[in-house]
């Protein structure tokens, strides 16, 4: 059964509210929901919640023989899955992946793997013989809008939280130390990209008319909102996802939907995303430090 589209009253009311700069959950137009991070008993186990959207990410590492063409590099594989239970509307079938699922999988790959967030060379143990293979599993448990940002945040925090066992190499002998014996080592992370999704809505008819009388050539500006809810995501004319780190380096910029956007609209979104990435970076650092302090009894810390 195809997921039912939102009803006409919902569409009309949402647009009417947005034209008065009001959002249904009381947020400001460019305000995101505050995420909640819960760390599990294992390192690399992160439960990320934004409102009712919930994603679970888990990182594990195994020792494998490297690919012959890249003997000095470890590997990272990302497995993402959206549970059919994530939405009561029956949007996500178990067998066939939906368009949104494919978008999320590809975006995660770009944000986490292709932006070189993790130093793959540091995963090498013994050249050509032994490397670490990281496996990042992402379970999307509930979707109430902006699953992508939530999944990206969960993925990157999981990698930052994860610690692999310490390894000692003497000659060609590899000794793996248990976490109680020697402190596990965090992964070497180059940078932390954060994904921010904007949804765009058509401007109100009155503002179109005002724009036309002033300058008929320029198209009226679309209304941007940050961190769209489920309904907003379904009704918007297009989305723009920007993944960047606190150093203002854009990793991915992805625009979906047919709506044309001007340079100033994109730049405005990038400005907001930069500010937010800086905030998020500090916040994530703080949360990770807090969690690590709380673990001092259970693992050996040097």
């Amino acid at each position, binding site marked *: *059964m195809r997921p039912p589209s939102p009803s*006409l009253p919902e569409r009309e009311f949402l647009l009417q509210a947005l034209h008065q700069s009001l959002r249904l959950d*009381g947020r400001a137009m460019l305000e995101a929901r505050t995420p909640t991070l819960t760390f599990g008993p294992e390192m690399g186990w992160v439960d990320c919640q934004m409102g009712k959207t919930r994603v679970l990410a888990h990182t594990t590492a195994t020792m494998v023989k490297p690919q012959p063409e890249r003997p000095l590099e470890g590997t990272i594989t990302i497995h993402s899955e959206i549970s059919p239970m994530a939405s*009561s509307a029956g949007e996500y079938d178990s067998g066939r992946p939906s368009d949104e699922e494919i978008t999320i999988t590809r975006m995660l790959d770009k944000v986490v793997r292709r932006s070189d967030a993790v130093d793959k060379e540091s995963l090498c143990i013994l050249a050509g013989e032994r490397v670490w293979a990281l496996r990042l599993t992402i379970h999307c448990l509930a979707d109430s809008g902006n699953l992508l940002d939530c999944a990206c945040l969960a993925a990157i925090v999981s990698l930052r939280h994860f610690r692999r066992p310490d390894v000692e190499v003497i000659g060609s002998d590899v000794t793996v130390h248990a976490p109680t014996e020697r402190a596990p080592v965090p992964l070497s992370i180059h940078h932390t990209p954060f994904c921010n999704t904007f949804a765009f809505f058509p401007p109100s008819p009155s503002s179109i008319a005002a724009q036309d009388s002033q300058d008929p050539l320029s198209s009226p500006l679309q209304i941007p909102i940050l961190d769209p809810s489920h309904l907003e995501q379904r009704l918007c004319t297009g989305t723009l996802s920007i993944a960047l780190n606190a150093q203002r380096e854009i990793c991915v910029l992805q625009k979906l939907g047919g709506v044309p956007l001007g340079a100033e609209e994109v730049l405005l979104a990038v400005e907001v995303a930069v500010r937010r990435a800086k905030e998020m970076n500090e916040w994530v650092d703080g949360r990770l430090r807090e969690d690590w302090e709380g673990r001092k009894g259970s693992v050996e810390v040097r």
Partner: protein
Amino acid sequence: MSSSSSYIVLPGETVPAQHVNLKLGPGLLQVISEISESSIISTRAGTVNHSANKSKWWVESNSKRYIPAAQESVVGIVAGKSGLDGWRVDIGSAHFAILDGLAFEGASKRNKANLKVNSLVYARVSLAHKDMEPELECFDAQTRKSAGFGELKGGFLVRCSLQMCRQLLDPKHFLLPFLGSRFPLEVAVGTNGRVWISSKEVKQTIAMTRCIEAADPAGGAMDERALKSFFNTLDL
């Protein structure tokens, strides 16, 4: 309605329901075996409740997936045409429901109701059978009057848990009388987890949406006092 002796059951448990004129509500099933007499077992997890004279028994639980039951009012979204003069309506159940074009007040072969795809209807489930698609009607079959059913124009649709919907239908529940004392409003509560609301101002409708979500046992689960203070923080 519910008595003090409500307790929790799991699916398959025997429920001591006995009465000469026993009526079973949702979540209970009569099992007839050859050796013993018939017994009543639960088919879902929840709390068992019964009426004061122990003639009506039911299991109260919360879920998001609606299972149609006859005579319940629901809010549906028209998904498309079905046949010559009918619509397929999404009521949140596993299958679409069928709404006949003649099941409206004043509808005849010549003068049929005109609904657009994606519009909202408030209807009553007229047929709910486990092996058939559910059927809806927008009038009282005896009087042929609309009795409040029909297309819902304007307003907004709030989705909540099924338990919240049932609570909103209870006249003793605090939320709707409280909101109604603050500003004029219109509400159509469906038992399928959808509530249509309408008021004059956009801000008021948003406030209603947020209050319903805050009072939902599956969401904020606020009680009367917490909700009233939450309402006062909203900018109206």
